[in-house]
C-alpha cells in the first residue's frame, strides 16, 4: 500500500539553528498539507499546496517558516531560526483531487525537539 514518506523521523536542534523536513506524498496526490501537532493537542494546518501552488498558508509563521513544492511532487518545510516553542510533531498529508479530496493520508511525522 502506498504511503506518505517523511524524513527525518526525529530531529533535535538548538534554538536559532535552521532545520528542514521533507515529505514525499503518495504518487498522484495533487494536494499536500503540512500540519503541526503540539504535544497534547490536535494537528493544526500550516500550509496547503495544490500541485506546486500554495492554497492556504494563513497559519504559517512566515517570518521563520517557509515551505515549497517546486515540481508539484515532494515538499520541504523549513524553519529558520528555530525557537523553543517550535518543538512539536510535523505531519505531512496528501490527498487526491475531486470527490476523494477529503480523504487525507498522513505520514509518520517528524518529531522536532528544540533545545
Amino acid at each position: 500500500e502506498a504511503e506518505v514518506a517523511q524524513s527525518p523521523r526525529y530531529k533535535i536542534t538548538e534554538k536559532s539553528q535552521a532545520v528542514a523536513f521533507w515529505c514525499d506524498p503518495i504518487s498522484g496526490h495533487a494536494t499536500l498539507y503540512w500540519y503541526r501537532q503540539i504535544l497534547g493537542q490536535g494537528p493544526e494546518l500550516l500550509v496547503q499546496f495544490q500541485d506546486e501552488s500554495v492554497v492556504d498558508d494563513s497559519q504559517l509563521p512566515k517570518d521563520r517558516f517557509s515551505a515549497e513544492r517546486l515540481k508539484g511532487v515532494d515538499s520541504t518545510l523549513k524553519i529558520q531560526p528555530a525557537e523553543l516553542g517550535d518543538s512539536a510533531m510535523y505531519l505531512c498529508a496528501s490527498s487526491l483531487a475531486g470527490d476523494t479530496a477529503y480523504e487525507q493520508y498522513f505520514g509518520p511525522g517528524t518529531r522536532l525537539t528544540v533545545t
Partner: protein
Amino acid sequence: AQSVTQLDSQVPVFEEAPVELRCNYSSSVSVYLFWYVQYPNQGLQLLLKYLSGSTLVESINGFEAEFNKSQTSFHLRKPSVHISDTAEYFCAVSVPEAGTALIFGKGTTLSVSS
C-alpha cells in the same frame, strides 16, 4: 470560525466493554466530519467519515459514528473494544466552502486494559 471539542481527554475501559468518545463541533455552515486514529509513533489514519447521506457511518474494525445535526455532534462508539484499540482518537471537521483542510479536536486517549 469552526471549532471541534472532544469532551474527554482520556477514556480508560476494560477489554470487551463498550465505549463512546464524544465530539461536538461549532460551525455556522455545513461541514464534513471525520474520525482519525493515531497509534504510538505513527501518523494519523482515517477511521471513518461523514460527507452526506446516512447519518450513521461505520468503519471496517467495528467503530461507528452518528452525525447529529441538531446537537452538532459526531460521537464515536464501539460495542466491544480490544486491547489493540488503545490509541489516540481525533475528531475533525472540514468546511467544503473553505477547502479541504481539516480542523482537529485535541484528541481523546483510549486506554483498553484486560
